[in-house]
C-alpha cells in the first residue's frame, strides 16, 4: 500500500461516485425543489415587502433560502456520504484496493463540493432570472419605491452565489472532519450544525464580550475565533440585494480563505481517518 502513489484519477473516480450517489438521493432533490419553490414564492409575494423595492425583496428571500438550505445540504450530504459508507461497510471494499485513505476523503470532499456547486449554480441562476425579469418590467413597489431603485447587478448576484458556495464548501469540509472520527452520521450532522452556529455567531459574540468588558469571556471567544472560520465574512447577500457590488479584492481574498480552510479541514480529516480503526 505504501508503494502505491497518490492518484488524482482515483480521487476523481471517488468524487464522481460520491456525486452520483448524492444526486440520486431524494434529500438533494427535496432541498433543490424547496429552494426553487421558496424563490418563486418570494417572487409571487413580492408585494408583501413593505420597505424594500421588489428586486431587493426577491433577493433577500432568495438568498435567505439559498443560504439556509445550502448549509443543510452541505452538512447532511457530507456526513451521510462519508459515515454512510462506514456504517454500511462499503468503505472496506474500497479501501481493500490500492486506494489511499486521503484519496478517499478528498474524493468525498470533491464530490460534495461539486454537488453543492450544482445546487448553488442552478438556484442562483433561477434567482438571477427572476431578478432580471423583475427589473426589466416597469412598476412600483407597495412602498412607493421605483422598481429599479437600487438596481441589482447580475454579476454581483452571481458573485454572491459563488461566495455562498464557498461558505457551504468550508462547512462541508468541517463536517467531513467531524465525520472522520464520529461513530455515527447523526453525531456528525449535529456537530456540523453546532459548528455552523459557532462560525456564524463568533464575530458577534466577540463584539458582545468586548462591549461587556468581560476579559475571560473575550479570551475564550478569541480562542474559538482562532480555531473556527468566521462565516460573517461571507455575509454579503444583504449588500448585493441593496444594489452593492463585490470588489475583486474581496472575492479573491474570500476564495483564498475558503480554499485554505477547506484544505486544512480536508487534510486533518485525512489524518484522523488514517488513524481510525474501521
Amino acid at each position, binding site marked *: 500500500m505504501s508503494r502505491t502513489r497518490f492518484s488524482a484519477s482515483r480521487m476523481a473516480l471517488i468524487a464522481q461516485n460520491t456525486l452520483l450517489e448524492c444526486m440520486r438521493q431524494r434529500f438533494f432533490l427535496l432541498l433543490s425543489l424547496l429552494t426553487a419553490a421558496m424563490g418563486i414564492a418570494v417572487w409571487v409575494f413580492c408585494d408583501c415587502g413593505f*420597505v424594500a423595492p421588489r428586486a431587493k425583496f426577491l433577493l433577500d428571500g432568495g438568498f435567505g433560502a439559498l443560504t439556509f438550505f445550502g448549509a443543510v445540504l452541505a452538512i447532511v450530504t457530507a456526513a451521510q456520504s462519508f459515515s454512510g459508507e462506514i456504517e454500511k461497510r462499503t468503505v472496506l471494499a474500497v479501501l481493500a484496493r490500492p486506494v489511499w485513505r486521503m484519496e478517499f476523503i478528498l474524493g468525498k470532499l470533491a464530490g460534495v463540493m461539486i454537488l453543492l456547486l450544482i445546487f448553488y449554480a442552478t438556484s442562483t441562476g433561477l434567482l438571477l432570472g427572476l431578478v432580471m425579469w423583475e427589473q426589466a418590467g416597469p412598476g412600483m413597489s407597495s412602498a412607493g419605491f421605483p422598481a429599479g431603485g437600487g438596481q441589482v447587478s447580475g454579476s454581483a448576484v452571481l458573485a454572491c452565489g459563488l461566495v455562498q458556495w464557498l461558505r457551504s464548501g468550508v462547512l462541508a469540509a468541517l463536517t467531513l472532519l467531524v465525520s472522520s472520527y464520529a461513530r455515527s452520521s447523526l453525531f456528525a450532522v449535529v456537530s456540523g450544525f453546532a459548528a455552523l452556529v459557532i462560525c456564524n455567531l463568533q464575530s*458577534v459574540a466577540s463584539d458582545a464580550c*468586548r462591549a461587556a468588558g468581560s476579559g475571560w469571556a473575550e479570551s475564550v471567544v478569541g480562542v474559538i475565533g482562532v480555531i473556527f472560520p468566521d462565516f460573517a*465574512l461571507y*455575509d454579503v447577500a*444583504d449588500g448585493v440585494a441593496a444594489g452593492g457590488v463585490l470588489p475583486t479584492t474581496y472575492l479573491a481574498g474570500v476564495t483564498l480563505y475558503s480554499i485554505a480552510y477547506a484544505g486544512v479541514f480536508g487534510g486533518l480529516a485525512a489524518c*484522523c481517518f488514517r*488513524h481510525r480503526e474501521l
Partner: protein
Amino acid sequence: MRACLAGSQPAVFVTVSSRTPALVFTGLALAGLALWPLRAFVDESGAPSRDSSEIRPAGLSMARWTSAAIPGGMRALLADGLWLKVYAAWVARDRPRTEALIRWVIMVDDRPTQFWVNGARIIAYDVTDWRLSAMNGGRVPSEVRRRVFEEQACAALEHLAAARIRHPDSAAIWVEMGNINLYRRGDLRRAAECYRRASESPDPPYYAARIHAELLRRLGHDREAYVWLRRLHPTLPNNDEAAMSDVVLRRIQELERKLKVPEKDRYVPGNLRTKATESTQSD
C-alpha cells in the same frame, strides 16, 4: 503509545490515537493563526453590507444577534411578515400587541428606517388616540389629554433615540423627532434643534432647513433665522421645485424689513449679484 480512548470517551467517538485530537486542535489553531491576516484582509476589503450595528454600552443590539442567527435575507422576510401582524394589531387597536410587535420587528431587522419611523408614528399618534378614546369616549380634561400626549410622545422619542444609534446619519429619523416635538409636545426649541440636525445629515430633505428657520422665527430668534436663511439660500438649486428657493428668498426679504437691515447689507442672490457686477463693468 496508542491508547484506546473509546473507554473514556462517549460512545459517539471512534477509537483513535490519543495524539489525534491534539493534532486536530493544534492544526486548527495553527491554521487559524496563519490565516488571521487573510481574514483581516477580507474583513477590510470593502464588501457591502457586513452588518456593523453599533455596539451599545450595555451590550449588543438584539438585531445584530438575529442578523447572525437568521441566514441572509430571511431577516427581511421575517420582519415584513411581522409588520403585517403589526398592521393587524393596529386595525384591531390592540395597543399592547402593536407595541410588542413593533419591538419584535425592530429586533428582527433594524436596517430599514421605515420600520423605526412608522413605529414611532403609531406610538406617538395612533396609540394616543386609542388611549384617549378608551377614556370616556375621548371626553377627558385637558390636563389628562396633555399627559397622555406627553407620555406617548416621550415613548416615541425614546424609540427614535434607539433608531439614531443604528442610523446615526438618517435625516428621516431627525425629521420625525422634530415632527413629534412640534406637533405632539409643542416644544418648538427641541423641534428646531431636530430639524437643524436633519438638515445637517447627509442627503437631507430641503424642507428641514426651512422649518428650522421658521421655528427660530416663531421662537423670536429673528436674527438667527435671518442668518440661517442667508446661508441656506445660495445652496438651493433654482431648477428644483422642492427646494423652494423663491420662498426662502421672500422670507429673507421679510426678515430684512422686520430687522431693519440697512440697504447696503441686504442679501442679494448670487445670480443677481453677478448681473449687477456685469452691468457696472459695462458702464
